[in-house]
């Protein structure tokens, strides 16, 4: 039996299966698996020949049908405990019946008198209730979320993160540390940090100090084992400026 199928008309594998069951005048509670599977696969084949993109759902259903068919073809087990084993088709039947209900409900919805299609409301808005009403929308949580994601889509993500994370540059902090040690001042490691530094600031300041030590621009000493660490410029401020602290030189971004 050849069945003309227009695939675009089917909403999904359940829809297609229901159609096949109906055109074959089968009892939905007693689906002839061999026949249905054959026809279903023929439709899939047709899809392939037409070079249509076969949605994954259709292929998954094909696999399910083949699986059910093979289970039905297996000889019945002799062990008595398998007597009450569920019909392999049961789950499929349940889904088909449930789907059929909503398909019918959808048809019933379609028949209801629809606003702007079957019934209309008056468009007259009295002038006295118009004030302040322009350009306003009533919102729910979806509209709120939707608004946010629209903004996210419009703002390039890198720029966005720059604002929120405020990446700190090591070069900038090298300059800040040099400024603090200007005029040969001797300062404790603690004083080099700003008053209430953020985590990122602490890290960047520390890296800046390490850089300066590496470049032998800053001397570090510690009087006692767990005592304060002291910092002092090892070169004159003028020399420090000449070095020209470019981020690229430092190797940080």
């Amino acid at each position, binding site marked *: 039996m050849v069945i003309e199928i227009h695939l675009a008309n089917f909403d*999904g594998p359940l829809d297609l299966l229901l159609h096949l069951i109906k055109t074959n005048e089968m009892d939905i509670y007693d689906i002839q698996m061999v026949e249905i599977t054959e026809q279903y696969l023929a439709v899939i084949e047709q899809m392939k020949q037409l070079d249509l993109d076969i949605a994954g*759902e259709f292929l998954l259903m094909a696999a399910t049908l083949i699986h059910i068919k093979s289970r039905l073809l297996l000889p019945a087990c002799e062990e008595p405990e398998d007597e009450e084993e569920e019909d392999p088709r049961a789950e499929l*039947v349940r889904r088909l019946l*449930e789907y059929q209900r909503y398909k*019918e*409900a959808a048809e019933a919805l379609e028949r209801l008198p629809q606003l702007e*299609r*079957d019934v*209309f409301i008056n468009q007259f808005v009295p002038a006295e209730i118009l004030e302040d009403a322009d350009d306003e929308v009533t919102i729910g*949580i979806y509209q709120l979320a939707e608004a946010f994601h629209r903004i996210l889509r419009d703002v390039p993500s890198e720029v966005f993160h720059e604002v929120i994370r405020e990446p700190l540059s090591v070069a900038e902090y090298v300059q800040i540390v040099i400024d603090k040690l200007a005029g040969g001042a001797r300062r404790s490691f603690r004083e080099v940090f700003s008053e209430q530094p953020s985590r990122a600031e602490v890290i960047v300041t520390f890296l800046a100090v390490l850089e300066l030590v590496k470049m032998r621009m800053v001397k570090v000493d510690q009087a006692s084992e767990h005592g304060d660490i002291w910092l002092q410029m090892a070169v004159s401020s003028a020399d420090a400026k000449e070095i020209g602290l470019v981020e690229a030189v430092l190797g940080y971004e």
Partner: protein
Amino acid sequence: MNELRKLIEAFIFAAESPLSLDRLCALLERSRAELRPMIEQLLSDYPPSRRGFYLAEVAGGYQFRTDPECAPWLRKLNRERPFRFSQAALETLAIIAYRQPITRAEVEYLRGVDSGGVMKTLLDKGLLRILGKKDVPGRPLMYGTSRHFLELFGLRSLEDLPTLKEFSALDPELAEAVPLDPQGEG
């Protein structure tokens, strides 16, 4: 015409969406007991099919609407074509209407196909609303239909939805076996 009834009529006429009895009570500073008989009177003054429009009970309120019999003519007024629901959209809407609150995964299980695109469209059209998150791993969003859904289909409430055809009177076991929350229907 009684002054109060006249005001009720004007309010219903001027409002942009159906006005509920409670809302009318608040607007007019009157009790439900006072207003209810007047609304009954208005309902019988503007019954369906007699005039070009009638007083409809919809989405928990009252609204004047044109007689559906006039629709073929009235469509000539509209420059834009009304939104036509695809079968996929209607199915999805039906499942959500009858099963709310329901997650996307549950909708997809029932339809057997991916439904994200359709649900997004329905959300954009204001026909669905998010009812919260389900208390299961992953906390998926739960969806339901909006007030606008009721207005669009001229339903007084969800109870007005056409009754779902029963599964099968012969096989009550099957009906019980559906892997969804039975309280979902309402």
